[in-house]
């Protein structure tokens, strides 16, 4: 396996334009002869499905939810970056590119990130054209705010529901194409296999989640936009249904999995209350623009927050990072929170929390302004905790929120399986070892609206129209059988542990040993515990009912089985990456003041893992990263 990035050469600012010009185009009358499968209907999936259908391709789109509008992109709160420089504060394409490469701790591919920064402007134009109701100023022009890891105001937002509005924009464009008959939509369908013929992706196998029917769908190209795998930690800010099955199956069929250990732990989530907890809820990072984060200066100070005088509070982010303060990047803010809680200075019943306090901002801006900017987030906090954040400071704690790792893709967003593409959070390409706020929406839409619709034509011109396999091809039949027997095997175990109990057990291992801080010892321990858990799963899982109708336990069990295997690869990747970078913090590699210590000499590369069969050790391949436009330097937010 070779990880060839296929990045263009020449000055970085001209690469994407030149690349698009050099690429062969598909004849307009031939486009309808090409069938493209898109799995996932989030920002990347819905945007790509709509855009490809507009171009004339025969598009078939699949999602596990009851409607494409429910994909978890909808939950993104804060905003989307674009280097419009509408505020005249010194932004530019190069600055957005620079901030993203630096924010990712120099572990992303320069060419991809530059392209992302370039198309960021087209995204905002497109979304406004669709009627996305972004926040506006009194003059009628678009408002912006600043966000973690940036010193310019480049984040566009729609109250605290930016993801919702962007997704609905893409969903409406998708529904328009469905209404026109240009996209066939399959809801409540879960992808369970990739069909590969002679090393080339030719389709997928799905399970109809209502009838249980296992079915092949063949195509000329398959595109995965299936999101991240952060539910490997069990408790996460992801939707309950988010899973790794699609990309994990692709990995098992020969797609390299890149940097699985790069996971983002978001600093501002509502803390856990008990064992019954099923998910964690994010409080938008935008709150850090006006909220001040603090803990008591002294260990074990159990006084109510209002009773703790100023001089006995530690505004630790402002103290440690005076130039960025509360806007320090997520990985740094999360680790700092963990550190103060580990010191015994955490707040709330569990001691796993820090205050996010709006008292000063309310004095400065007035209650009305705070309500306008953050009202819906405050309401949400109150609904969940029963506490009024206008009166008592919020309590927050870090939680699994995003995964920077994913399927390895080249500049065309194609995996190591020809014909299999991967977009958005499901791929690895743009965020390096840490993602900056308001960059996920940007990447999902960049891939879906602008990048994939351009690059996929370069692949399709190499395929003769009408040479698609049919669903009775032996490879399709074999993939169907694999999916069927896997479900039957799960149903047949009839043990004594529920899929949720096994998932929770996995989450505990991952959070403890492969979470915010990782050591050689902790990872080795996890690598012993996970195979044992895998065995426990296959010997002891209990799933009632049959596979022939709606069976939510069966759905979950299948996903948990894949998460267990992925967890093992994550730990292996974390063990092999003997450095700290971004969200991957190996405690052995830190500066004297506790910051991540990279090893550029030995680890300035992407690790792409090749599957070699169940029970065999996967092979670690490297894609060396070159930094020609941004000087490799130690990140500093001080």
């Amino acid at each position, binding site marked *: 396996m070779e990880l060839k990035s296929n990045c263009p050469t020449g000055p970085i600012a001209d690469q994407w334009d030149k690349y698009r010009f050099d690429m062969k185009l598909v004849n307009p009358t031939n486009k309808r002869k090409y069938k493209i499968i898109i799995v996932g209907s989030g920002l990347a999936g819905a945007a790509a499905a709509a855009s490809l259908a507009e171009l004339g391709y025969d598009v078939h789109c699949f999602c596990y939810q009851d*409607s494409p*509008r429910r994909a*978890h992109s909808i939950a993104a709160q804060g905003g989307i970056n674009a280097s419009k420089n509408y505020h005249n504060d010194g932004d530019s394409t190069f600055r957005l590119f620079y901030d993203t490469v630096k924010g990712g701790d120099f572990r992303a591919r320069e060419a991809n990130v530059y392209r992302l920064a370039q198309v960021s402007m087209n995204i905002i134009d*497109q979304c406004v054209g669709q009627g996305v*109701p972004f926040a*506006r100023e009194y003059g009628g022009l678009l408002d912006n705010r600043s966000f973690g890891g940036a010193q310019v105001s480049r984040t566009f937002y729609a109250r605290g529901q930016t993801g919702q509005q962007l997704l609905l924009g893409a969903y*409406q464009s998708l529904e328009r194409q469905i209404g026109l008959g240009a996209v066939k939509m399959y809801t409540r369908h879960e992808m369970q296999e990739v069909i590969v013929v002679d090393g080339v992706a030719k389709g997928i196998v799905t399970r109809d989640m209502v009838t249980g029917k296992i079915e092949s769908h063949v195509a000329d190209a398959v595109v995965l936009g299936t999101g991240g795998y952060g539910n490997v930690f069990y408790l996460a800010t992801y939707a309950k249904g988010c899973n790794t099955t699609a990309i994990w199956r692709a990995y098992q069929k020969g797609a390299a999995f890149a940097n699985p250990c790069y996971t983002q732990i978001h600093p501002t989530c509502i803390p856990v209350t008990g064992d019954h907890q*099923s998910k964690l809820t994010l409080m938008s990072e935008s709150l850090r623009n006006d909220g001040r984060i603090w803990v008591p200066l002294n260990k074990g100070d159990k006084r109510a927050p209002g009773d703790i005088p100023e001089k006995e509070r530690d505004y630790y982010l402002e103290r440690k990072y005076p130039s960025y303060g509360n806007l320090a990047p997520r990985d740094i803010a999360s680790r700092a929170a963990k550190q103060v809680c580990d010191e015994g200075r955490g707040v709330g019943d569990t001691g796993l929390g820090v205050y996010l306090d709006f008292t000063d901002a309310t004095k400065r801006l007035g209650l009305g302004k705070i309500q306008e900017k953050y009202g819906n987030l405050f309401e949400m906090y109150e*609904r969940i905790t029963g506490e009024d954040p206008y009166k008592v400071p919020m309590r927050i704690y870090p939680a699994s929120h995003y995964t920077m790792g994913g399927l390895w893709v080249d500049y065309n967003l194609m995996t190591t399986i020809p014909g299999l593409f991967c977009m958005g959070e499901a791929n690895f390409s743009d965020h390096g070892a840490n993602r900056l706020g308001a960059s996920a929406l940007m990447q999902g839409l960049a891939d879906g609206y602008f990048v994939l619709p351009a690059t996929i034509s370069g692949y399709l011109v190499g395929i003769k129209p009408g040479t698609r396999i049919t669903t009775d091809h032996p490879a399709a039949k074999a993939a169907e059988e694999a999916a069927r027997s896997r479900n039957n095997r799960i149903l047949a175990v009839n043990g004594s542990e529920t899929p949720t109990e096994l998932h929770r057990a996995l989450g505990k291992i991952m959070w403890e040993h492969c979470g915010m801080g990782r050591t050689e010892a902790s990872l080795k321990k996890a690598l012993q515990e996970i195979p044992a858990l895998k065995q426990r799963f296959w010997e002891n899982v209990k799933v009632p009912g049959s596979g022939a109708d709606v069976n939510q336990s069966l759905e979950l069990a299948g996903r948990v089985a894949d998460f267990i295997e992925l967890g093992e690869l994550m730990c292996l990747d974390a063990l092999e990456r003997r450095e700290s970078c971004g969200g991957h913090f190996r405690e052995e590699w830190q500066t004297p003041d506790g910051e991540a210590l990279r090893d550029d000499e030995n680890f300035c590369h992407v690790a792409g893992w090749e599957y070699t069969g169940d029970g065999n050790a996967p092979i670690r391949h490297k894609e060396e990263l070159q930094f020609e436009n941004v000087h490799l330097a130690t990140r500093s937010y001080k």
Partner: protein
Amino acid sequence: MEKHINVKLHVWRQKNAADPGRFQDMEANGVSTEMSFLEMLDVVNEGLIHKGEEPIVVDHDCREGICGACNLVINGRPHGPKERTTTCQLHMRSFKDGDDITIEPVRADAFPVIKDLMVDRSAFDRIIAAGGFISIPTGSACDANALPVRKQNADLAMDAAQCIGCGACVAACPNASAMLFVAAKVSHLALLPQGQPERYTRARSMVQQMDAEGFGNCTNHGECEAACPKGITLENIARMNRDYIKASFLYREETGGGGS
């Protein structure tokens, strides 16, 4: 403060669309008041699985009140007793020890039951497909600031655009009308300059599709507004009705030639 309560559940169980269905009584004991309603059901379902029984089927996903997947009717109220709160964000602190809790699916002809509490809301998608969009192919937009939008209109559009498509409005309406859902999208786009070219065809097409799906009509009960977890107001229905009436006067058959 965390407390533990015991509640009696009466849950609708239905194998499939053809099954007449029935209520099943069960107890949920030692429920933490810090749990969400769905977490309480998770615990009940774990108990059922351990007994080898099929767990209660419920649509849910984000569990943070934004995806719109959950839509239980709790004690006769869509999403339960707490105003402007989805089922997933309803917490057990809203209930008392010893409470009886009846849990049903949304009941509407246009939303057939799939299993237990899960219903088919694809009619909503078909209404959007009929016109709930602005026709702007990727790549054809002008600069985002080329078209200023009055702040007040942008804010009103955003108010309407917050609809999560959960169907609580349909569940609450004695006529099972989808007017609030449809009006939210019609209003969102009608309030923006980008939405003007298709404004009247949109209102007409969406209303026609709504009728074709078998939803009832609006008779001004206002139950939908009271049940909406996102606070979508009746004013949107008035705006849609105005646009719909105007659309029926403005309607002309398309003139063949176009630009070719």
